């Protein structure tokens, strides 16, 4: 380890002015020794509190999703510090947290803007680590950004708890020891969708893919095509579309006469809202092909996407990590707690971020230390329940959570403006579990 | 000795014949004036000398070198400078810079990646430029931004920019247009002084006072052709010239 890495222990901008003199005056010899084996970056041992970093998109297309994530994080911090009604702390099993912070230290937090850009997200994360002294950071709304932050986490020796990221690569070929994902992935979407599609649409179908032309799109296209081809469906075509194309009509028009009777949209966010809206306008849903109703599938759904696409999502199938209408104790507790704080139910992005924060805190409590090497070990292969997804395993081999996956469809009789998705089936985690070897990748060392 | 030869130059703009079989021969050391009514093709002809326009046919040679198809900077580098009807100067630069640039262009050629020297270390170039500014009476304004000069001063500046290069041939497009009588006379004096350096000049001019004080030879252009050519006193009396001008000028 080099002598040039010095942990910087300043917690907040406000104190920075007063503290800066002190930090610069810290004799190098002490910090050098402090970086021994049992110690780690941003060690909060001598501090009364610990700081988390919440790095979410505050500008750009995913700003609303980021805002919802931030609400969830603030709620999680409240609950950890014993304020509010406790939310999922009441339902989490096993539970080591006591509602007095973590290991007796109060939880504080700093925020940052990822802009949904890798460079900006890493810059913001580095600020949290270098300036604000965070012990863990979390958040995000895109796989590319999550992967970029995850590798930074490994370099920095600070744990990163991914927010919303759905690419297989996050816990596949780009997995990292210091990165953890609670959210599900494209493979699991495919595996969960398979049986439902078979039941609803039969075995003799011809599918046409429109895929966002970047890594997440490709992994989802591959996973879904594997599933549908396994059912006996024929893949008519896979067409790549530019990211942020806005108008997808030139890609949708050829679908009409391609002989396909299913359109699969491997798009996310604004791209999905636009392509779905436009596909419906082309009359695809009213079409009869080969004597069957034409169907559109959106493998990854989110509530914000459903809101953006409006009427057009009615009856369209997809998967989601979690939905507020679930009736288990954990979900009910979380929805109630979130709704009372903010006046509306949480999104799946909010849920995964909330859960990630609690899981990290719980792991520290169980490990009895903030030392990331120990916390990581406590998270790996940890089994828990009561967090809204049923019994869940945080698999040690790839840092992916395995839990039930929800197959949903756009609600045709919504009772409120949040009641957009109807849960069609809860696919048990056993059906979506896979061998970690299939995606390769290398986690890397515990100590960096 | 002939310095510039123009033979059978034609130029059309759409249906309009701007230059029609123009022939011209300019002798070394002479001041050759080109006069003619508006739209006679004087400026078009000048543009054909400096690479701004390419004639449809005919040839233009300068000291035996073909000028047709050559780029403006190449033509300047072999010794042809031009003063424009509306002064073309470096408006946002200082007067001194305006003169130093052509001086450097003369010394270093069309391109030189001279990024390491300091302008304020170029003593010789600077002295030459300052000297030139004195010559045209602008020395005390050397630090001013060129755009803030009066129109007459701008013309003098442009003239200085051409003179500092010691061109072999100087093209002057109405050098005194818009000047007061006093300024005009100053400019005539200045141009006469240059004459002493042996610079050949082609002058386009409306002001016959200027023409007859300077020119040693005059060509009269009308509707794209040379209708008369000769010494000033011959031209004065030429009936074709008077007809071309229709008494519009005080010939």
């Amino acid at each position: 380890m080099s002598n040039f890495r010095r942990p910087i222990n300043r917690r907040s901008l406000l104190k920075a002015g007063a503290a800066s003199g002190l930090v610069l005056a810290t004799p190098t010899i002490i910090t050098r020794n402090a970086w021994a084996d049992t110690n780690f970056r941003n060690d909060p041992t001598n501090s009364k509190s610990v700081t988390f970093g919440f790095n979410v998109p505050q500008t750009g297309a995913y700003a609303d999703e980021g805002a919802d994530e931030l609400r969830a994080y603030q709620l999680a911090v409240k609950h950890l510090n014993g304020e509010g009604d406790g939310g999922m702390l009441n339902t989490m099993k096993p539970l080591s947290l006591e509602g007095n912070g973590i290991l007796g230290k109060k939880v504080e937090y700093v925020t940052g803007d990822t802009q949904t850009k890798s460079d900006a997200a890493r810059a913001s994360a580095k600020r949290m680590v270098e300036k604000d002294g965070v012990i863990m950071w979390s958040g995000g709304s895109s796989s590319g950004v999550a992967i970029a932050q995850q590798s930074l986490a490994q370099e920095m020796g600070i744990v990163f708890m991914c927010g919303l990221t759905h690419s297989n690569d996050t816990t596949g070929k780009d997995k990292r020891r210091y990165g953890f994902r609670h959210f599900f992935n494209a493979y699991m979407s495919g595996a969960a969708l398979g049986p439902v599609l078979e039941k609803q649409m039969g075995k003799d179908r011809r599918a046409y893919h429109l895929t966002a032309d970047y890594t997440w799109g490709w992994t989802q296209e591959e996973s879904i095509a594997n599933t549908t081809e396994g059912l006996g469906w024929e893949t008519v075509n896979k067409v790549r579309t530019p990211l942020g194309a806005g108008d997808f009509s030139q890609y949708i028009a050829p679908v009409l006469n391609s002989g396909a009777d299913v359109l699969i949209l491997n798009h996310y966010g604004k791209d999905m809202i636009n392509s779905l809206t436009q596909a419906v306008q082309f009359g695809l849903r009213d079409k009869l092909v080969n004597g069957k109703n034409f169907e559109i599938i959106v493998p990854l759904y989110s509530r914000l996407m459903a809101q953006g696409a409006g009427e057009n999502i009615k009856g369209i199938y997809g998967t989601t990590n979690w939905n507020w209408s679930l009736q288990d104790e954990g979900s009910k507790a979380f929805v109630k707690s979130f709704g009372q704080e903010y006046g509306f139910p949480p999104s799946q992005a909010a849920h995964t971020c909330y859960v990630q924060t609690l899981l990290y805190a719980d792991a520290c409590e169980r490990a009895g230390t903030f030392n990331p090497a120990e916390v990581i070990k406590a998270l790996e292969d940890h089994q828990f329940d009561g967090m809204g997804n049923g019994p869940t395993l945080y698999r040690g081999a790839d840092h992916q959570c395995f839990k039930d996956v929800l197959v949903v469809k756009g609600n045709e009789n919504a009772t409120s403006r949040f009641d957009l998705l109807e849960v069609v089936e809860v696919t048990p985690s056993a059906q979506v579990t896979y061998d970690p070897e299939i995606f390769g990748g290398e986690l890397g060392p515990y100590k960096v | 000795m002939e310095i510039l030869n123009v033979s059978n130059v034609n130029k059309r703009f759409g249906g309009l014949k701007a230059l029609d079989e123009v022939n011209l021969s300019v002798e070394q050391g002479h001041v050759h004036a080109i006069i003619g009514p508006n739209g006679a093709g004087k400026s078009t002809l000048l543009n054909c000398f400096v690479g701004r326009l390419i004639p449809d046919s005919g040839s233009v040679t300068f000291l035996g070198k073909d000028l047709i198809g050559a780029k403006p900077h190449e033509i300047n580098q072999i010794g042809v400078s031009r003063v424009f009807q509306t002064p073309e100067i470096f408006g946002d630069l200082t007067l001194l810079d305006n003169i130093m640039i052509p001086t450097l262009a003369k010394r270093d050629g069309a391109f030189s990646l001279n990024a390491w020297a300091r302008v304020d270390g170029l003593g010789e170039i600077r002295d030459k430029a300052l000297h030139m500014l004195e010559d045209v009476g602008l020395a005390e304004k050397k630090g001013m931004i060129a755009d803030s000069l009066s129109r007459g001063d701008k013309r003098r500046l442009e003239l200085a920019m051409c003179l500092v290069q010691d061109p072999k041939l100087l093209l002057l497009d109405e050098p005194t247009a818009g000047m007061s009588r006093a300024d005009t006379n100053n400019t005539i004096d200045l141009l006469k002084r240059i004459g002493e350096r042996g610079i050949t000049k082609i002058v386009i001019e409306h002001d016959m006072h200027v023409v007859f004080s300077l020119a040693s030879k005059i060509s009269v252009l009308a509707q794209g052709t040379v209708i008369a050519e000769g010494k000033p006193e011959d031209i004065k009396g030429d009936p074709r010239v008077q007809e071309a001008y229709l008494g519009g000028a005080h010939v």
Partner: protein
Amino acid sequence: MDAIVLQILNGLDKGGAYALIALGLTLIFGTLGVVNFAHGALFMLGAFCAVAFNHVISLEQVVVDPTKITAWGTPLETRTPYIEVWLGDTGTTLLNYSVPLSILLAVPLMLLFGYVMERGLIRHFYKRPHAEQILVTFGLAIVLQEIVKSYFGANPIPQAAPDVVRGAMDLGTLIGFDPGTIVYPQWRIVYLFFSLGIIGSVFAFLQFTTFGMVVRAGMADRETVGFLGINIERRFTLVFAIAAMVAGLAGVMYTPILPPDYHMGMDFLVLSFVVVVVGGMGSLPGAVSAGFLLGILQSFASMNEVKTILPGIDQIIIYLVAVIILLVRPRGLMGRKGVMET
């Protein structure tokens, strides 16, 4: 064959949209000589006129039922738009026609906004370098979109077309193709005719009115017109307001195709600049033909047959065409010499 007809149709449709968005921009270039980086924001404001109109007419009467509680712990609310409460079926119809009706709001609002923007800001930048025009209009664009974001959020807000034109129609049967082969969304056809109509009106306005003649003369030579004792300034203000209105209308009518969000202006900004420049700065016919040209080429480049030969061509076609045209024709398709060349 039907695939090609479909792509030509699609190209025309895209081209109409591009031309309409670029029209106002080139009008501002040509008359005022201003590089308006806020043009995308004007397009976005137009779209949000539709959103705002929809919000207003669908204001809801909220009936709270305290005996029932939602899953998130708040009392159950039943919401009905006031307009339906008051007007019954007529109200429902009005809601259904919200997008076309919002033109009534967008026209005065965008004219007013354009007027204020020109008088308050743009006017002071006529003589300033283009770089400064870019900076100030870009700053304005950011401010506008952030204001919209802070009120409407960042997520796209869907706007439905009226029911009668919501679906697709079979155009193929009209021109002798098999039924079901040339099917195209009705709203897109409406949009194509709408953009042709607006483009035509702007042309007619400039061609056949005295006002238009003065503006065209001003485009050609501003100083001379000034000498004639005509107050060109005031006319230019109106030109800017009209350009803002055209951008706004393009935005209003585009909402059913692309659910509007605060950032949509930036997404169209680069594209509209490319269209204007390819057409030639300040040339209205140039901008329109460039719009259609780029639209059609983009549609064709997106065909699978083309993409298999040239992978990724659909991603760069617009820019590639722009480069080629600018190299072959220095001032774009119909640009005039000396405009925006320094």
